[in-house]
């Protein structure tokens, strides 16, 4: 079984982003970039399936700027077998990303897609579902446990009301939630080895991404909250809450 793990280069989750003064977006200059954390979890899951003998090959792919090669190299170092880089300087929206990934799935003969449930930059939470739909495949989103048996996957999903278990026929798209696993650390020798793993470049022009898109016209910081104050003890806290009519 061949797995595709799409990944995205995004601002590191520890960075507090700053909106540019001219409202054109968030400041990315000099900001630490990493692999979207949910995608690391997806790759880890693919690698564990490979270690169990369920999966034969793990292909990581990204759509993004030239520097996104760094993120592909880290996931190769984590253990993926090879990488595909669709080089794109423009912003790619979820439906467009799904169309590009669909073509990669078909070109590569992929049997299972494991990817993050959302990217922590645009927080859209769409691409996996859209990819599954375009392929006519089932989806199991927000996965916290994945078991593959023959031609089906049994997936625990984290839903608002608790946990749901779905059974889907393969091929399928599974999107990873945070509790699916804890990704292994990348070791230095593996970073050296990853430099020799195959990484294919593809041009954006090879893909049909002509679909309606949304236009972002402005980016601004969220409205701030009023400054708060400290109270000295429980009595003062209760008195203040009573004043505000909250208890």
């Amino acid at each position, binding site marked *: 079984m061949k797995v595709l793990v799409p990944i995205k280069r995004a601002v590191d989750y520890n960075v507090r982003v700053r909106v540019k003064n001219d409202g054109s977006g968030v400041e990315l200059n000099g900001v630490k970039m990493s692999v979207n954390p949910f995608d690391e979890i997806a790759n880890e899951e693919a690698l564990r399936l490979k270690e169990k003998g369920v999966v034969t090959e793990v292909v990581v792919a990204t759509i993004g700027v030239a520097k996104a090669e760094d993120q592909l190299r880290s996931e190769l170092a984590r253990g993926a077998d090879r990488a595909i880089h669709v080089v794109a300087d423009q912003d790619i929206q979820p439906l467009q990303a799904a169309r590009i990934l669909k073509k990669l799935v078909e070109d590569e003969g992929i049997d299972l897609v494991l990817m993050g449930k959302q990217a922590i930059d645009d927080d859209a939470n769409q691409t996996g579902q859209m990819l599954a739909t375009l392929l*006519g495949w089932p989806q199991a989103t927000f996965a916290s446990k994945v078991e593959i048996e023959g031609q089906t996957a049994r997936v625990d999903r984290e839903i608002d009301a608790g946990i749901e278990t779905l059974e889907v026929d393969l091929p399928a798209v599974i999107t990873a939630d945070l509790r699916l696993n804890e990704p292994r650390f990348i070791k230095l020798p593996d970073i050296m080895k990853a430099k020799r793993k195959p990484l294919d470049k593809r041009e954006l022009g090879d893909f049909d991404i002509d679909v309606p898109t949304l236009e972002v016209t402005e980016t601004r910081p969220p409205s701030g909250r*009023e400054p708060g104050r400290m109270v000295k003890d429980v009595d003062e806290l209760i008195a203040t809450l009573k004043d505000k009519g909250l208890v």
Partner: protein
Amino acid sequence: MSKILIVAETLSGELHPTTAKAVACAQAIGGDIHVAVFGSGDQGPAQAAAEIEGVTEVLYVQHDENNAARAATLAPQVVALAAEGYSHLLAANTTTGKDLMPRVAALLGVPQVTDIMAVHGPRDFDRPIYAGNAITRVQAPGDFVLVGTVRTASFGAAGGGNSAAVSDKAVDAELPSHTRLVEQKTGGGDRPDLQTASRVVSGGRALGSSENFDIIFKLADALGAGAGASRAAVDAGYVPNDMQVGQTGKIIAPDLYIACGISGAIQHLAGIKDAGTIVAINNDENAPIFEIADLGLVGDLFEVVPQLTEKLG
């Protein structure tokens, strides 16, 4: 004029309260507001949807497959309804809405606006990015069907007392058999639902065990509040995942939020930015949660929380 279809959400055969929040967003857009309820049994949840203020018609779609709601089987039904001239298809941005609506959008070949938090015009919205640390204004040029999900923390529920017409609707759609629901384990319980509760008490890693979490539940019960948790508390197994508040848990907007032993990581704060009053109880005076809290109390939660419960009870 807009013609808006809201995809209702049901849980255990009842209409979920977030549906009324999606209706409030539709009211801000303006136009004819229909609600589609998908079920396999009686019209109960459809009747409940008909009571929501602003709704002009409820479509009840009965199908055996709808006894177990799944995105794969719901999406073709929503798309079949969409053919009847709707300008907008909306659902609440719950895990159900997040799972379903991109599937609907992809079937229609259109983009989706996730997490609508404000409406400037029928195709012009604000939505948060970077866990709410930036807000973008997005427009949808053209006249394709606008598919979106509604940020429940940004809209108060539409009122009740309405009595819109409910009609049975048969849809002609081929439903795939590749996705089967095995089981659902829901926490449920008697406490108010986090996404609609007016008060919420949350505990973090500091609680140390699921037994200790009891003091959080006791305070919540004394206040008639919902009970929440940080990711660290869920990861450690103190409480189930449905209690997680934050970027990857629930985004909530209660009038009162009490965070006990939670440090205030940006991913947690993303879930409570719209709360009315935030109270933080933490024994570290430098904890980042105090930067966003309206009222902060430095102290040991194992002393402070039981005191609060006793004095409020």
